[in-house]
């Protein structure tokens, strides 16, 4: 406690772009962001307290008011709800005496909060107690954790009784499982000598590296699937004194966790990919933007970076090459899905709200601090390291015509072997279901809420590939017993909660769409309502400013296409000229009783 604004400012060089780091320091010290400390930070940065709050209040892990001594964030996800989430949630309320979203318990010990997917779909339900994670929760386990906290143990002591050092992989492995189910060809194969790999790359010219990446046919693994070679070339030829390489480790798409596993099992493969990118585009500054939910990886990743520095694989005049200076820092986010969108991520790195920028200009032209920036997904960087190890032809030979290589799938839901699988692009949906031991599967959410909900019966032969079923890595299996409409609602709610709010179609439209689904669920909608909702969906998708709005209606649209009966079965027959949602009988239901009461009153 007692950390003051000046100490925080000094620690971060009074640099406004480090505002998120400052906010984390303050919150860790005080449990929230006290008004006077915020005012002190504002003064030190030459701005207003409102301006600091403008950034802070965007992120759901920052709090301007005090909460309980511990804040418990229970991940509310579709998979958790298949795995006893309701019981865990009820038990948490019972044991702590607090209510979700409400004030702390009377003793001031606990606040309970909801949070979206924390990247642990294969070991849910999961919760964070401040930054410490607990997985595979059951009511009894929850009761035990709360009892220990009440008895005075810290979350850290409860989770890590052996006191494993945080920079050791054993600590990470103790907290969360990695569940890697396949080995190779690209990932989790054998240890690589990154020193020789980087040395061999530096013998090539940057142009030669760019050529190899282009020849490999690699397309970005973060979702959009843009050609990595083309992006690098654009960034290399963009004019700018200084350039940046950013690794997108925000992994916010509900259902994905492969980037967490890559950063745990193969961090140096990812960082080597960043070094190669820096050399190829001429960048000197690197940032890994890590979602705050993965805070337990910070010390471990810092140590990997330190080791690379000690090895001369990061830092000034790398490997004795004068003029090639490149280093990497970690930037921890603050809790926001849209910050995975590349330009929102850059805003966040600059210490602002995660508001997506208008494009063009693209980050490759004007990115971090207005300078050319190459931003790629964790898996893309790890893939790059392997492409340069084995050659572009080796990579190109795998996959399909438009999707070269392999893809990591984060598999969860109704299957016997959830975890991380590497599959060649072109693998069919059925083949993946077989591989993972799917249990009576009805549907698969491919690429998370922003992707598609496909039917196992109708789409089994479709291929995981950019030209067919594009997939950002999430693969969530829904068994026949699942309530798909309930899942659609969860996903739409997620987008409403995570919209940055800057543009109208997304901010207002998604809420209307959610309410529309609620009307269907309540049995208040007719066919015409669905037609309207499809029209709103087109407008939201077409007119929104960023990819969040461009994809948010997809849970509704894809289920409507594949599973129309989940909607139809709840239709109400319209009553004459009235709106379907208007039920004359229901509206008049209380009439007789009210009249009787009135008569009694009068008499």
């Amino acid at each position, binding site marked *: 406690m007692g950390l003051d604004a000046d100490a925080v400012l000094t620690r971060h060089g009074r640099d406004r772009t480090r505002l998120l780091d400052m906010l984390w320091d303050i919150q860790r010290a005080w449990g929230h962001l006290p008004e006077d400390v915020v005012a002190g930070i504002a003064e030190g940065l030459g701005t*207003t307290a409102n301006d600091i*709050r403008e950034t802070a209040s965007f992120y759901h892990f920052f709090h301007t008011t005090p909460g309980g001594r511990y804040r418990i964030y229970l991940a509310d996800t579709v998979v958790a709800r298949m795995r006893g989430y309701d019981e865990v949630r009820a038990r948490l309320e019972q044991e702590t005496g607090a209510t979700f979203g409400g004030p702390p318990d009377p003793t001031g010990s606990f606040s309970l909060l909801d949070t979206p997917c924390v990247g642990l779909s294969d070991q849910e339900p999961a919760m964070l107690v401040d930054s410490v994670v607990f997985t595979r929760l059951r009511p009894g386990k929850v009761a035990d954790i709360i009892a220990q906290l009440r008895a005075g143990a810290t979350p850290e002591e409860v989770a890590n009784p052996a006191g494993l050092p945080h920079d050791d992989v054993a600590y990470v492995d103790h907290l969360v499982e990695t569940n890697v189910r396949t080995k190779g060809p690209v990932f989790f194969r054998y240890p690589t000598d990154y020193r020789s790999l980087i040395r061999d790359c530096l013998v090539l010219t940057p142009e030669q590296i760019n050529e190899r990446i282009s020849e490999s046919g690699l397309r970005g693994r973060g979702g959009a699937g843009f050609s990595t070679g083309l992006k690098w070339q654009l960034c290399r030829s963009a004019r700018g004194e200084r350039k940046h390489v950013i690794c997108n480790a925000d992994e916010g798409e509900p259902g994905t966790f492969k980037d967490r596993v890559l950063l745990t099992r193969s961090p140096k493969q990812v960082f080597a990919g960043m070094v190669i990118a820096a050399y190829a585009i001429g960048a000197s500054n690197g940032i890994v933007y890590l979602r705050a939910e993965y805070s337990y990886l910070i010390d471990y990743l810092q140590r990997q970076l330190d080791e690379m520095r000690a090895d001369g694989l990061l830092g000034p005049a790398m490997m004795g090459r004068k003029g090639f200076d490149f280093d990497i820092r970690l930037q921890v986010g603050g809790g926001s899905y849209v910050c995975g969108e590349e330009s929102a991520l850059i805003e966040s790195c600059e210490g602002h709200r995660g508001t997506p920028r*208008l494009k063009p200009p693209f980050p490759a032209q004007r990115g971090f601090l207005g300078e050319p920036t190459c931003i790629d997904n964790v898996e893309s960087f790890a893939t790059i390291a392997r492409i340069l190890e084995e050659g572009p032809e080796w990579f190109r030979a795998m996959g399909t015509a438009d999707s070269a290589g392999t893809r990591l799938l984060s598999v969860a839901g109704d299957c016997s072997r959830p975890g991380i699988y590497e599959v060649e692009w072109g693998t069919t949906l059925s083949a993946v279901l077989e591989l993972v031991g799917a249990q009576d599967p009805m549907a698969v959410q491919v690429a998370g809420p922003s992707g598609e909900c496909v039917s196992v019966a109708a789409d089994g032969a479709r291929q995981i590939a950019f030209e067919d079923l594009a997939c950002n890595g999430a693969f969530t299996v829904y068994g026949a017993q699942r309530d798909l409409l309930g899942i659609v609602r969860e996903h739409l709610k997620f987008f409403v909660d995570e*919209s940055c709010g*800057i543009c*109208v179609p997304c901010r207002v439209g998604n809420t209307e769409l959610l309410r529309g689904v609620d009307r269907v669920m309540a049995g208040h909608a007719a066919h015409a309502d669905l037609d309207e909702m499809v*029209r709103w969906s087109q407008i939201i998708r077409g007119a929104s400013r960023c990819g969040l709005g461009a994809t948010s209606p997809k849970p509704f649209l894809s289920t409507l296409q594949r599973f129309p009966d989940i909607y139809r079965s709840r239709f109400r027959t319209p009553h004459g000229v009235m709106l379907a949602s208007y039920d004359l009988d229901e509206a008049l239901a209380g009439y007789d009783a009210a009249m009787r009461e009135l008569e009694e009153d009068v008499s």
Partner: protein
Amino acid sequence: MTIQLTIDGEVVTTTEGTPLVEVAAANGTYVPTLCHHPGSPCLGTCRVCAVRVNGAIAASCSLGARDGMVVEVNTPELRDLRRTIVEMLFVEGVHNCPSCEKSGRCQLQAVALDMRLEGARFPYRYPDREAEHDAARIWLERDRCIFCQRCVEFVRDRETGKKIFSISRRGERARIELDVELADAMPPEQVAEAVDLCPVGAILAKGVGYDVPIGQRRYEAWSLRNRVLGRRPS
């Protein structure tokens, strides 16, 4: 560089990079806007100026003209799209035009009238939004705010360059905040500018009411469409 593109099938000539919304206006095609503020950096928040460019929907304020672009503005589908976005704004806030000081000079009202908007396809939400009355000369009627960001981006303290208006929270809970101390330091003409900058009646000057009679106000005297198209009263 001079280039050519088509707007609703007509070939027009312009300078490369000119925002499409301005190219359209210069050639007699009115595209409604709310956040767009000519001469200032693009905000791209309201999306009311959506058109199709080479088949894809785009905000015409945020896209610069390129040679050969095929721009569609007045198709039934696009009119309906823009109208829907305006309806979204009406249901999201509380807009009692007849009792609003900005009536007749409100851009949202003028755009809606031009579209002949009479109601909305969404239920009205009637949100409960707190007004900000603490500053001496200016107040914030959040009910009417359309979150266009003009005040946040374009109003600065004259001495320090600090923001006077800012945002808090996100998504549908996001709202505009006012720095009361800096607001109280605003000279009267800056207050008037801020009131004028706000496209709706969310930023208002205290102690001013009905300074221009109803019926003679900006868009009543000469419509928004005519103003945008640069038509002068004869």
